[in-house]
């Protein structure tokens, strides 16, 4: 019995207690494998759905299919697993920053199923965000099983996300970088080592099950100097596209929220619209890996007009699918939009300067992809590494870096917060490790209480109070009611100093008469940032803390600085 109980707490084994890195690496392998499996499962079922539904594509009613899929997925999320819609990445980041990466078990499969329904039926969305969420939830639950502490759990959640991305793209470095850059936001060796291991495990699983194929192979590009200059224009175009997508997604979200229908009707309406677009431009349907492949090979034959139209159509379809309640991520649509934008740009260039020997259009498609990913996620490194890995081409690295960096900068200028973090920042919930917001959210009022105040009663005479002043270290004296013990007000020595040296007042005044009843107070469950704001507004250095009308202690800026420093030191140094 005891052995059985012990295996669940490997953190207490002697070998791991000495150094938890070993333990984390071990668990990272398990988590990477599991989330890799989840990614492969989603990928396989998407392919199966696609093949199964392919026979119905040519019927006139095929535009209903995305509607049915989206409605089913919304119903599944809302009624069966009772989760909110959305792609889930903000949820992961939120739980990582506030609750040490605690996630529900149901999250580890719910998004897989719902996004499979949405995308498989033709909705325009990506399978990556759902896989990231599942991987993260798998990691979180495995960490929970082994009773790891918060810091370790956060790392393991990162491992899950890394394993998932690595596995779905067969791209270990992209997985690592994504997980650290977007999910954790903390570049530290303690994180990087297990996450790297998990990426390897995830990739390996995918290679075993699906073969070691590069997702989008391509021909060799010969990039000239002019091409590199031309990249700047592409970066601008992809920045515009990503801002457009962000804005449209959010406005769709707002519109659909106002619609007075149940969530599945809304999803169906969105799906229907996508289906109708899909009749004319089938490229917008699904996650779009297949058209991506043709574009990179340079085999996409449509003319400039159609391609330009397709960029906007895809943006619209994606925001219709996701904004109206479908389930999925923006990763794959970003790739498609990016490559379409790249094609458009290339064809435009060829049209304007036909004599210049431009590089193959597939190359621009690649660059556009990187531009969009970097622009949407504000994650240039993820964009660069992902493109290099999924295309297996290192020769594009220079223009790739330029496009990614410029696109990120431009997007940052227009949309200061990335798509994943926008929701969190608006709620003030983005708490990256080592930041002011994080330290303040971790500290609680309870921890800052100074309890060395002497509480006095309201009917006490000033004479008795003088004796108390003698013994006190503090300038503040809380006054409470004799009978109920309720807090009534404060006495600050500065306010009563004139009376202190007038013996005639000693027996004439009770404390109830001289206390300050209009005191700004703090409650135990107030947020510290809120408390500090109150202090700043009222120019106070300390405030009394009250719980259910009883005085608990004081909170002051001096103690806060002390604890804040401690906390910051403990948090940032690992």
């Amino acid at each position, binding site marked *: 019995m005891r052995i059985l109980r012990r295996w669940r707490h490997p953190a207490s084994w002697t070998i791991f207690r000495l150094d938890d890195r070993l333990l984390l690496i071990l668990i990272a392998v398990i988590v990477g494998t599991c989330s890799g499996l989840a990614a492969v499962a989603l990928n396989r079922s998407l392919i199966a759905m696609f093949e199964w539904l392919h026979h119905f594509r040519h019927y006139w009613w095929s535009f209903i299919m995305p509607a049915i899929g989206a409605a089913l997925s919304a119903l599944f999320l809302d009624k069966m697993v009772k989760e909110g819609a959305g792609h889930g990445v903000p949820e992961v980041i939120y739980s990582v920053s506030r609750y040490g990466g605690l996630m529900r078990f149901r999250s580890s499969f719910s998004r897989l199923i719902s996004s499979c329904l949405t995308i498989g039926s033709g909705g325009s969305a990506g399978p990556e965000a759902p896989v990231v969420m599942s991987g993260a939830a798998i990691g979180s639950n495995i960490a929970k099983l082994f009773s*790891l*502490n*918060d810091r*370790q759990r956060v790392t393991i959640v990162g491992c899950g996300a890394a394993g998932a991305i690595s596995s779905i793209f067969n791209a270990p470095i992209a997985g690592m970088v994504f997980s650290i850059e977007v999910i954790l936001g903390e570049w530290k060796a303690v994180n990087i080592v297990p996450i790297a291991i998990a990426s390897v495990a995830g990739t390996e699983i995918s290679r075993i099950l699906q073969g070691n194929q590069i997702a989008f192979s391509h021909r060799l590009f010969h990039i000239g100097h002019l091409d590199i200059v031309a990249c700047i224009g592409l970066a601008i175009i992809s920045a515009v596209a990503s801002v457009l997508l962000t804005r449209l997604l959010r406005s769709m979200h707002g519109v659909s929220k106002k619609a007075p229908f149940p969530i599945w009707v809304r999803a169906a309406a969105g799906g229907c619209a996508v289906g109708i677009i899909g009749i004319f431009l089938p490229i917008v349907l699904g996650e779009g890996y297949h058209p991506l492949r043709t574009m990179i090979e340079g085999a996409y034959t449509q003319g400039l007009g159609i391609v330009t139209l397709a960029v906007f159509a895809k943006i619209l379809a994606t925001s219709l699918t996701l904004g109206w309640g479908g389930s999925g991520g923006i990763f794959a649509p970003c790739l498609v939009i990016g490559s379409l934008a790249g094609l458009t740009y290339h064809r435009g260039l060829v049209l304007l300067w036909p004599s210049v020997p431009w590089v193959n259009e597939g190359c621009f498609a690649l660059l556009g992809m990187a531009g969009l990913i970097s622009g949407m996620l504000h994650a240039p490194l993820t964009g660069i590494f992902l493109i290099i890995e999924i295309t297996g081409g290192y020769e594009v690295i220079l223009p790739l870096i330029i496009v990614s960096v410029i696109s990120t900068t431009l997007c940052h200028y227009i949309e200061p917060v990335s798509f994943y973090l926008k929701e969190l920042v608006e709620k003030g919930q983005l708490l990256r490790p080592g930041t002011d917001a994080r330290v303040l959210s*971790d500290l609680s009022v309870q921890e800052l209480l100074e309890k060395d105040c002497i509480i006095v009663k309201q009917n006490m005479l000033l004479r008795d109070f003088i004796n108390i002043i003698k*013994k006190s270290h503090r300038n503040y004296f809380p006054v409470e009611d004799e009978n109920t013990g309720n807090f009534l007000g404060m006495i600050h020595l500065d306010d009563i100093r004139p009376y202190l040296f007038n013996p005639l007042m000693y027996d004439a005044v009770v404390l109830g008469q001289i206390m300050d009843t209009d005191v700004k107070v703090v409650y135990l469950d107030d947020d510290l940032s809120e408390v500090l704001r109150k202090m700043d507004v009222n120019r106070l250095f300390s405030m009394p803390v009250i719980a259910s009308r009883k005085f608990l202690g004081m909170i002051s800026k001096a103690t806060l600085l002390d604890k804040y420093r401690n906390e910051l030191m403990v948090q940032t*140094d690992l």
Partner: protein
Amino acid sequence: MKLNLNDMARCLDLPVSTVDRWIRQGRIPIHRSGNGCIFKESILEKWAFNHGLRFSLPNEERKKERNFGLTNLLPAMQVGGVFHDIKGDDVESVLKSAVDKLPVPAINKQGLYERLLEREALTSTGIGKGVAIPHPRASLPDEIDNSLITTCFLEKPIDFEAVDDRAVFVMFILLSTSIKNHLNLLSRLAFCVRDDSFVEFLRTYPDSSSLLSKIADSENLLDKVDN
């Protein structure tokens, strides 16, 4: 080692909730098991040092506490001793003969005498009612181990240029280890002298044991008022 959470928090001089949270977040090298904290002393000590925190086991801490606290009147007077019939016609000679009697062998008596005079030159330490409390301006943390008060009854009252111009018949020479102690002893002594009956009692030139017991009574009274 194993300690429970409350003791642990005391050792680290942090609120319980902070320690609890740090353990949960994995920020401190302590492992949790039930309500107990398992840790390695050396690792934790190093960790605490690196993060500017204090860590000391409970038994070590108690030792430190004992050195704090103020000396009371009674022990100080016991150390200082009581002397009668101090000879002298003026402030200088009285102080000179009093300093000679001080029961502090290690001290530079000439230096002390000069420092007492220096203080008298500032203003008289005669606080009225025939009582004077000569003391040096600075405390003497290096020269004496414990604060002390030496009581000197004079052979004949002399003019001390006291505030009320009454002749001084008794001196309490006050030597203290710290400013805090000095203030404490001075205020306690002043409390006793404010009481007229106490001064009357002094005028009877009591012997050492009855003086000390009177002091003990007065001091008890003082503590009672304070609480």
